[in-house]
Every structure is written in structure tokens, then in C-alpha cells.
């Protein structure tokens, strides 16, 4: 990334020689990102400021482009806010929106999807995997249903990209959101894959960069970092996902065995390799993560975004948890640096943390107070 801030600072859009090498670097990084998801050509990938912009561009871009054909949008009830809120905004602009229910594991109900589709349906937006509960959706089956009705499928792969293999061709994905910082790349950069032939409206109008779909000089240093992250993610995926899955299984089993009345959030097997989402009855998530932080373990309660609102996460409510159950949820995300020893450390300190908070809680039944 550094050379593109110090010596190769030319504008990739410029014709002069200073712009040539940056231009090449941008196209190489585009190819790396395209390769990660097996896109048909690198030009189908455009760079954005991150997953939030990509989701906004996909959802609003498809909706505004196709409003003469129909005004019905379908999404799930567990999407990230950067899909939820654009969709709610579109509702105020005259679009009809269906929020699909999910089962207790967070898997989208395919029957409901099929029944919700009608002649006016132009867009279905379903995430690849949920970052809060780890559950991976049956994207290929969803795609078949969506395409039978000639609608467009957008998939938010923010939490999944770089962690599990994604193939936009065989899975039948029309638009796919990618994030850089969720796969160890720099923040402030992301991408949207738009299948050749799918036409959308831009949100940002200007000099016509990124095929006119995202004007503005490209953020080259971060794009180069993103490309490298995508390259590494692809090279290490098979080995790393197997390693993380073992750690995940060990951590989930260890926690559920060590702590009474604790439960897994999300699907036991169809889940992201790095995602450990558990809940403990009678106590509140933030006090668990503060206690963990005091012992050197960084975790989050529900989702870092919802921590600002104090409301329990809409994802946890959508999988059928009561408010008080959702409040007791804890999310640990495993990564490249984590080891068996660290997993065992978390398992070893958790029972005392939970017990201390349960002793303090007026909700804890007597038999659990020890």
C-alpha cells in the first residue's frame, strides 16, 4: 500500500505516465478481487468505500433502475442495517417490501420466499452469512427461486467473503457485496460485483469512474491492500477455514459444557468457520464482555453496531429469542492469530465470569447460585 501513497501517487484516471502504473495496479487488484469470487471478468467488480456503500448501491441501484417494471423488493429479517435501512428508505419512496422470516437457526424460509415472489418483484437481497449468528444461507436454492421469477438477486457477503468459498457463477449471484476489513484488509474500501448484463443506477454521479457506477477518484492505496487481502484469503482459505472450524467447534463445545444454561445462537454446522455466538441465561452481554476484556479477551455482545442503541439485535429477535435472552448474548470471532491455547483460556475463565454475574443477578434461580 505504501508506494501508492509516496511515489506512485498518480491518478489512475490520468493518461500521463504518472497515472499508468497506478492504473495497472488498480486493474490487478480488481482481478484479485474478481478471482476470489470467480467472477466472469474483472470489470464486473467495482470499488466502493466499503460494504455499506456497496449494499446501498446494489439495493437502491437495482430498485431505481427497474421501477418501471415493478416496485416489489424482498429481503430477510436478519440483514445488516446497510441493507435494512436502504430498503426501509425505498419503502418511503413507494416501493413494497417483504421481510422474510427465518427459522430458529436463522435460515431464510424458502417457501415464504417462493410465495412472496410476484410479477412486480424486481429484487431479492439476502445475505450470504450472518455475522452475528454465523448462519450460512442456501444461496444456490434461493437463486433458483429468484431467477424463475426473473428478479435480480443481491447477496451481502460482508461476513462471508474471504472465509468460505463463494462462486458467483455456480451459485447464481447477480450482485455481491464484498468488504475488505472483514478479511484483514484496510478499512474504507469495499467492492460490489455486478454480473455482466445486470444494469443498475449509480448513486454517485460525477467523472464516470468505475464504469460510471461510482464516480470519484479511486482510493488506490486501500484498493491495493484489499487486493492483497483477497489474494491471501483465497490462497489460505482451505487450510485456514478447516483450522478455524476446529477452533470454533472446540470453543462452542467447551463453553456449553462448562457453563450451565448456556446455548448456541445460529446453526451448529452451517455456520462461518470463525463465528462463536452463545448466550447465557439470567445475565447481560455487556457485563460479560467487560469481564472478558479485563482478562484480555476481546468479544462483543450481539453486534458492535447495535451496542449504540441498547436495543437487542433485530437478528436475535428474528430467530425467536426473547428480549432478555437476546441481552445475554456474546459473540466471539476467531481469527488468523487465534490458537488452541487461547480457546482453552477463554473456556477456563468463562465459568467464573458467568457465575459472578449470576450471583449478582436477581433473575438467577437459586439452584444456579451455587
Amino acid at each position, binding site marked *: 500500500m505504501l508506494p501508492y501513497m509516496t511515489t506512485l501517487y498518480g491518478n489512475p484516471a490520468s493518461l500521463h505516465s504518472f497515472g499508468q502504473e497506478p492504473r495497472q495496479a488498480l486493474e490487478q487488484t480488481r482481478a484479485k478481487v474478481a478471482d476470489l469470487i470467480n467472477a466472469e471478468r474483472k470489470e464486473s467488480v467495482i470499488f466502493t468505500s466499503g460494504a455499506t456503500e456497496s449494499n446501498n448501491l446494489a439495493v437502491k441501484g437495482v430498485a431505481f433502475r427497474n421501477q418501471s417494471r415493478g416496485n416489489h423488493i424482498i429481503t430477510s429479517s436478519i440483514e445488516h442495517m446497510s441493507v435494512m435501512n436502504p430498503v426501509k428508505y425505498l419503502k418511503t419512496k413507494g416501493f413494497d417490501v417483504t421481510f422474510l422470516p427465518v427459522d430458529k437457526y436463522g435460515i431464510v424460509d424458502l417457501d415464504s420466499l417462493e410465495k412472496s415472489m410476484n410479477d412486480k418483484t424486481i429484487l431479492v437481497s439476502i445475505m450470504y452469512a450472518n455475522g452475528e449468528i454465523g448462519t450460512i444461507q442456501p444461496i444456490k436454492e434461493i437463486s433458483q427461486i429468484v431467477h424463475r421469477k426473473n428478479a435480480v438477486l443481491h447477496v451481502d457477503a460482508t461476513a462471508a467473503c474471504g472465509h468460505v468459498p463463494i462462486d458467483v457463477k455456480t451459485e447464481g449471484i447477480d450482485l455481491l457485496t464484498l468488504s475488505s476489513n472483514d478479511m484483514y484488509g484496510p478499512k474504507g474500501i469495499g467492492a460490489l460485483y455486478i454480473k455482466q448484463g445486470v444494469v443498475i443506477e449509480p448513486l454517485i454521479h460525477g467523472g464516470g469512474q468505475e464504469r460510471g457506477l461510482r464516480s470519484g477518484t479511486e482510493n488506490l492505496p486501500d484498493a491495493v491492500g484489499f487486493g492483497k487481502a483477497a489474494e491471501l484469503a483465497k490462497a489460505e482459505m482451505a487450510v485456514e477455514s478447516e483450522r478455524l472450524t476446529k477452533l470454533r467447534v472446540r470453543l462452542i463445545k467447551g463453553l456449553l459444557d462448562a457453563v450451565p444454561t448456556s446455548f448456541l445462537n445460529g446453526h451448529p454446522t452451517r455456520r462461518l468457520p470463525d463465528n462463536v455466538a452463545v448466550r447465557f441465561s*439470567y*445475565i*447481560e452481554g*455487556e*457485563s460479560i464482555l*467487560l469481564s472478558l476484556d*479485563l482478562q484480555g479477551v476481546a468479544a462483543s455482545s450481539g453486534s458492535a453496531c447495535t451496542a*449504540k*442503541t*441498547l436495543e*437487542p439485535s433485530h437478528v436475535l429477535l428474528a430467530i425467536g429469542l*426473547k*428480549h*432478555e435472552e437476546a*441481552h445475554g448474548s456474546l459473540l466471539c470471532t476467531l481469527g488468523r492469530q487465534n490458537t488452541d491455547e487461547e480457546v482453552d483460556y477463554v473456556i477456563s475463565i468463562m465459568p467464573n465470569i458467568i457465575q459472578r454475574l449470576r*450471583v*449478582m*443477578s*436477581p*433473575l438467577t434461580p437459586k439452584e444456579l447460585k451455587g
Partner: protein
Amino acid sequence: MYTDKVMDHFKNPHNMGEIPDADGVGTVGNPVCGDLMTIYIKVKDNKLEDIKFKTFGCGAAIATSSMITDLARGKTLEEALKITRANVADSLGGLPPVKMHCSNLAADALHVAIEDYYKRQKEAKQ
């Protein structure tokens, strides 16, 4: 996010527990909102001889519960009723704005406990 004082009270809360033969008990909040606290008081000669708490909630909820027991212990009932949410937050060196409303319930719980004590006294006289 939290002050050192909040973290001190979170790590080592003061006066945590129940008073089985309490003279007044006050519970405020709701597990649905993520915060629920109960304050137990023991009254002697119009003074708070003992005070304890039980709390389900975030770091701020636990720290404010602990702090109110320090602020109220030994005070007359009239003095204790004058302790406000703002007093509790100030004594902790401040709370994040988002926690001021939801998790700063300890003063309310204390006031409810004192009202419960007055009610029990009144009923005893009748």
C-alpha cells in the same frame, strides 16, 4: 468508554447481595430492556442502617447499583430521598450518554425501597 471509577465498582461491587429481613425493597427496570435492579434496605432510627443490591444489567447498571449503596448508607431517609440519578453518575465520574437514561436506575430503586418502607410502616400502624 467507562471511567476508572465505574470499572472499579464493576470489578468489586460494594454491598452486593440480599437482606432477607429487609424493611423495604425496591425493584425497577425490566429484563426486556436489559436492566433490572433490586435495592434492599434496613432502617433504624430513621437511618439507612444497611443497604444491599442485586442487579441484572450492563457495567453501568452494576456500577450505579454499587455506588448508590455507598451514597445512601448511614443517611436519614429524607437525605436518601434527595439522592438523584445525577448524583450517582457524578460520583462515578460520569456515564456514557447512552447509559444515562436506561442504566442509571439505582436512585429510582432506592426511592422505591424507601417508599416501600413507609408503606409497610403505615400498614403496621393500621
